[in-house]
């Protein structure tokens, strides 16, 4: 069954949501329907994150996320600049909240292997994996050199915090929101740490003569 629920223009959305009484109630009910749809769509795609949870409980989580998204949208109405459809703008609050919820569910209770944070021996295995029998010796040596530069930068040039975040996100593949939660920080701070780490890695590789095309072709399969 398909239907149209979003027949308001951007201005009408803003006007109705800022109105009072029945007009506002009707607009909020329509907005709620829109947000619930976004949450349910995301949950239905990420059902694996909710393994073991009964259906009723998943649906309840969806209602909770929708309520949180509704509050977020109402609190941010003045931020809407009208440079997209109102529905697209509103959806992103629901997507953000629902995705964080489903990731949290997946990672809840997973203890991170702290030992691998201090034991670097397993971190640089790509060098071994990448060596194929038909690889020319000089190419293999250059691969080794790239790996060595990366290892040196990670071990000596990054701050402790940058190293910890890089290992968690790039090597252990822990989602950003989970890193945020466990380190008690926020996405912007994590992104900045990773950005700074990438800049150091890039400039070190370039300083040693490894430019982009040549380096990528060394490793491409």
């Amino acid at each position: 069954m398909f239907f149209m629920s979003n027949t308001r223009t951007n201005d009408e959305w803003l006007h109705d949501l800022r109105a009072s009484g029945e007009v506002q109630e009707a607009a909020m009910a329509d907005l709620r329907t829109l947000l619930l749809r976004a949450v349910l769509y995301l949950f239905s795609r990420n059902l694996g994150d909710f393994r073991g949870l009964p259906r009723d409980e998943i649906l309840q989580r969806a209602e909770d996320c929708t309520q949180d998204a509704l509050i977020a949208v109402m609190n941010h109405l003045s931020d809407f600049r009208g440079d997209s459809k109102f529905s697209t703008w509103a959806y992103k609050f629901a997507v953000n909240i629902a995705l964080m919820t489903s990731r949290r569910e997946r990672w809840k209770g997973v203890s991170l292997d702290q030992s691998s944070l201090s034991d670097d021996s397993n971190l640089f295995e790509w060098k071994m994996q990448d060596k194929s029998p038909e690889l020319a010796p000089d190419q293999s040596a250059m691969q080794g050199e790239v790996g060595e530069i990366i290892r040196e930068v990670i071990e000596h040039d990054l701050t402790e915090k940058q190293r910890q975040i890089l290992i968690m996100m790039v090597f252990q593949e822990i989602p950003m929101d989970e890193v945020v939660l466990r380190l008690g920080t926020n996405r912007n701070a994590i992104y900045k740490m990773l950005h700074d780490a990438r800049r150091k890695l890039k400039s070190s590789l370039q300083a040693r003569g490894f430019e982009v095309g040549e380096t990528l072709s060394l490793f491409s399969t």
Partner: protein
Amino acid sequence: MEQKRFESWLKNIYETQDEEISCTECFDLVSRFVDLEISGEDAVAIMPQLKQHLDQCRACRDEYEILSGLARWENDDESPSSDDLRDLIH
């Protein structure tokens, strides 16, 4: 680390810019980017920094992909009802 993943990380390293936008700025701009794409405009040319952030940030990219799907449905008037979506959760 698997080879494919390493390659993609190496690519990310080389595509690093001195100045990159934050996740908050990305969240602020992504709805415009999605709607530009849907309307057939060259969103990447218009908002290169947003695209650069999406290429570097898995968390923001995941949100962008879902948002894009939802906005396309909305644009085509083909959004399924909440009941239809509830049926997919079992």
